[in-house]
């Protein structure tokens, strides 16, 4: 073989491998969407037809289980959590990146250590703390939006602090220095100079928080029981099990659940990927 021909074969092999990886990676997602367009009977026989999609499933799924409620609850809880946790972690991340203060190292260490605690360990204590808050202050916490938002905010703030800290640390210090010379206060410099330039970092952190809040399962199971506040991981279980076996609707609901996060990801991926990799590449 001539060198040119050899090079072409080499390229073809690489292209084939790439295509294989893409197909294998995407196949389960495609399978989920395909399955959501079949009838129950066909699925039970293991038949999938490509020619006759049953879009009806996407109408039925809202009536069979009150999925709209669960979707709304997930959107509200994840959305507000994202806003609150993003603000908290921006402030704390900036303080860690730019100020030396007593306890800064200890706080940084504590932020990372939270990732070491198995969630199951504080599930019951938090439940009892919530009961105690209700008894003492008359404020219900279990089965409420704000109870879930409080938990999720606390859960996803530490890693977000770490992402934002890395992001701020990479910004040139001259930005604030110039503003300070112009007579701004330190907080003013942060607010008017740094924050507007932080959109990519904020978006990356925000998407990170939203993905994680959308994904949370264990606390949602224990802390919510009524459909008024329960999130998707609770509602989606109702399509199969004791009373029915509607895999078609289950797959439709799974698709609907995946769509918001995929859209959020696709809209922001340009900033998200650079924001998420910036800190981790450097170590």
């Amino acid at each position, binding site marked *: 073989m001539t060198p040119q021909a050899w090079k072409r074969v080499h390229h073809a092999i690489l292209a084939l491998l790439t295509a294989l990886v893409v197909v294998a990676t995407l196949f389960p997602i495609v399978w989920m969407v395909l399955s959501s367009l079949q009838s129950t009977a066909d699925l039970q026989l293991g038949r999938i037809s490509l020619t006759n999609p049953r879009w009806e499933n996407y109408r039925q799924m809202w009536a069979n289980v009150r999925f709209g409620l669960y979707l709304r609850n997930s959107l509200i809880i994840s959305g507000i959590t994202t806003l609150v946790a993003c603000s908290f972690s921006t402030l704390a991340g900036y303080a860690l990146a730019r*100020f*030396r203060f007593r306890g800064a190292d200890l*706080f940084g260490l504590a932020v990372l250590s939270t990732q070491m605690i198995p969630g199951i360990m504080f599930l019951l204590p938090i439940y009892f703390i919530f009961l105690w808050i209700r008894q003492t202050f008359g404020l219900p916490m279990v089965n409420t939006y704000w109870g879930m938002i409080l938990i999720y*905010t*606390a859960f996803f703030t530490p890693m977000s602090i770490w992402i934002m800290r890395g992001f701020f640390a990479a910004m040139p210090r001259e930005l604030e220095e110039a503003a300070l010379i112009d007579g701004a206060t330190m907080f003013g410099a942060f607010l008017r100079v740094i924050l507007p330039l932080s959109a990519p970092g904020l978006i990356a952190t925000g998407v990170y928080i939203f993905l994680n809040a959308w994904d949370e*399962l264990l606390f949602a199971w224990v802390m919510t029981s009524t459909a008024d506040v329960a999130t998707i991981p609770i509602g989606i279980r109702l399509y199969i099990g004791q009373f029915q076996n509607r895999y078609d609707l289950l797959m439709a609901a799974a698709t609907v659940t995946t769509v918001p996060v995929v859209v959020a990801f*696709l809209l922001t991926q340009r900033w998200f990927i650079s924001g998420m990799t910036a800190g981790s590449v450097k170590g």
Partner: protein
Amino acid sequence: MPAPVMNSGPADRAPAAAGLGRRFTGFGTHRSRPHRPAGDWRTNRLAYAMVAPAFLFMVMVHLVPMLQGVAMSFLQLNQFTLRQFLGAPFVGLANYRAILFDPENPVRAGLAVAARNTAIFSTVVTVLVLATALGVALLMNRNFRGRALVRTLMLLPWVVPSYVVGILWSYMWHRDTGIINRILVDWLHLLPEKPFWLMGPNTLWAIILPTVWRAWPYVFIVFLAALQTIPGDLYEAAAIDGAGPWQRFRHITLPMLRPAIAIQLLFQIIQSVYAFNIVVMMFGNGSGYAGEWGDLLMIAIQRQSFQSWLFGYGAAASVLLMLAMMGVVALWYRIFRQELIIR
């Protein structure tokens, strides 16, 4: 602990700011000037105010409940004493003794099985995730048409909610009608008859693969970004010196990737030891038992706590698991501390 590690701030530029006077003394990364006393209260006040909300939430939802969780592990906390919570009878180390050494205790056998599965599961998942991510990153680290699109598509599994991943794969693993058996047996004829995936020793693979499928794309993106920071001259110089592809990989690529590999290794270990969502959803949508080969520690602890009401045992097992993880992290830090210094 990995705390000081990821400190990747720019070199301290304090001298440039010296002329700005007193107000500026608060600036500077703590890493670069560790021995100076912290700034005065006036400059620190802003820093404390900015940290305060996050700190308060972390105390409320991490520190206090964790300490209570540790306290629970010394109590006889079960369905009869649950209402007293921390007022339940104090039994010292009895919970620990029971789950570690008491051969009569059925909980101990269950936890031992779960610990074995978790050890196999997290080792295999971590190795497969890192190896797949590295291999595909090397494969994709070249210019071809549609690269940006492919990179985005590859991340999609990572965006799919983990409970959806569990539901979806348990449906795909189904013995008679599941697509995996249809491909393996009906189409490719790789196996003589359809195996049960969600029963027996196969369960381990049935829970490992979805976990790897969802986890590797993110690591891949990190590795790909790291690969792109390696200057091309290094490879050219090595090629001129007669280094083959394997030698270039071994002596340039791997050393340059070591910091990224170190961090991702740690995250993967923590994530897979604490794995819960995907696996729990694969069996009865979260209400089933994964069997002798699919039960993981977090799931076993959750079952002991919330189905059998053995909260004291559950808390003791959680504390032990956390201590073991701290040991793993300390070991990791000893091995990789050289990689984590920013040069």
